[in-house]
């Protein structure tokens, strides 16, 4: 059996092993990968950057721990930027397994920036049924969230004084791994018309660029590369930039496998065609 035939019959576990070994390389020999900032990521950075001190920004962290690899870096970069600019941040999660994760992130970043819960930021917590929650928040944040995540009534929080609904925030940034991006587009931007940007997983990215072109979104942070770009802009290098070295090696191995399998496929197909066997 020739090598090309062997490639066509390779056990998929060898490929898993190769990818596994590939991502271990940067763990041993780390190196930096330069990132080029995309316009759609820069627009979100610029939007947050031009806000005045004490302006309000609303951040929806709508993903579960299963997606934190891609989305945590962008959440942290955005909250870091907002805290560094002394913005008031209102945070919510519409993902059922999100609350504990969001609480950990917000508490840690607030401590890093000497921000006080209830004064500089508010974590509203979680409510099920995103569409209903978004519509209700458009009327008044107090309808779905009479109290914050910690049980403190919103009216008694200094950060929530004089702020009622989306009309009082400068913009909404939704970081999501699922269809909550659609809910924010339909019931948020569509119904209330506030400026909306999203940070999404790589899998979802291709599905949302048309909303950028139509102006329904003012920016997109796509996957871990987008997160690395945002970290670069904000100046807080984190897991996003760290992951880029691993991504480069893993992608190189995957591209190599794609080329090898295509060469083998077409070469063996031609041979089989000549023998009258037809395509595989």
């Amino acid at each position, binding site marked *: 059996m020739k090598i090309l035939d062997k490639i066509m019959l390779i056990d998929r*576990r060898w490929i*898993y092993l190769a*990818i*596994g070994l590939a*991502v*271990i390389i940067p*763990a041993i020999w780390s190196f930096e990968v330069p990132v080029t900032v995309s316009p759609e990521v820069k627009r979100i950075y610029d939007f947050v950057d031009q806000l005045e001190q004490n302006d309000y920004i609303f951040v929806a962290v709508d993903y579960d721990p*299963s997606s*934190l*690899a*891609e989305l945590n870096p962008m959440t942290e970069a955005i909250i870091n930027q907002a805290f560094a600019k002394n913005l008031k941040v209102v945070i919510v999660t519409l993902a*059922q*397994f999100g*609350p504990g994760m969001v609480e950990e992130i917000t508490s840690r970043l607030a401590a890093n920036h000497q921000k006080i819960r209830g004064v500089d930021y508010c974590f509203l*917590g*979680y*409510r*099920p049924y995103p*569409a209903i929650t978004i*519509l209700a928040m458009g009327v008044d944040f107090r309808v779905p969230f*009479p109290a914050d995540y910690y049980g403190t009534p919103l009216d008694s929080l200094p950060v929530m004084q004089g702020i009622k609904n989306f009309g009082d925030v400068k913009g909404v940034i939704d970081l999501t791994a699922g269809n909550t991006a659609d809910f924010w*587009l*339909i*019931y948020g*931007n*569509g*119904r209330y018309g506030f400026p909306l940007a999203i940070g999404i*997983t*790589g*899998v*979802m*990215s*291709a*599905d949302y660029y*048309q909303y950028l*072109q*139509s*102006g*329904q979104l003012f920016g997109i942070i*796509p*996957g*871990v*590369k987008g997160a690395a770009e945002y970290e670069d802009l904000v100046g807080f290098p984190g*897991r996003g930039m*760290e*992951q880029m070295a*691993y*991504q480069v090696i*893993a*992608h190189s191995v*995957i591209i190599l496998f794609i080329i090898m399998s295509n060469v083998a496929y077409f070469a063996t197909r031609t041979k089989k065609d000549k023998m009258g066997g037809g395509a595989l």
Partner: protein
Amino acid sequence: MTTGELILNGIAAFLTLCIFSFLYRDNPFYKFAERLVAGVATGYWTILLYHTNFTDKVIEPIFVYGQWYYIIPSLLGIMMWTRFSRKWSWISRYSIAFYIGISSGVSITVYLYTYLFKQLQATIATPITFDMAGLNMFLIVVAVLSALVYFFFSTPHKGVLGGISKVGIYVIMIGFGAGFGLTVMGRVALLVQRVIFLKDYFVVLFGG
């Protein structure tokens, strides 16, 4: 890292390796980790829903604050449970009718606005100019129309229609290709995050 964190991270590292072991083949370690995740997730969500929905939307309004009108949506919710009885399942239709009626009324207009009108407006209203933005706009119009033609099956795809349809399939394939590349990036990110976690854990455990 405290001793408690070390133990917790040790369990997380063990469960990560259990899940990865499926890449070789199915085994009891993988099954254990898989079922543990499913069990913990179900338990967590049930309690979360109890506290974020049942307590503050049913028990507290009715029994603590005396807002008796909350009984109406609660009753509609209870009526849903009649689905389990063949004899009484017709009662659940009232709840379903109420739910569908409300959601249709709320959703139809905003869905049309978001998915149809705004998208059509963006495709039609932007002028095609002789610069990069104009070229981009031209490509969008060509891509939208040719992809639509590909799914138009009322006439055989021959001649001009066949040519446009062929452009359409290339457009769709480019879309799939972009989606595939981004999906690979997402899946690799999941693996990388776990590898970084394991690396950090073993560095703390053994020094490095």
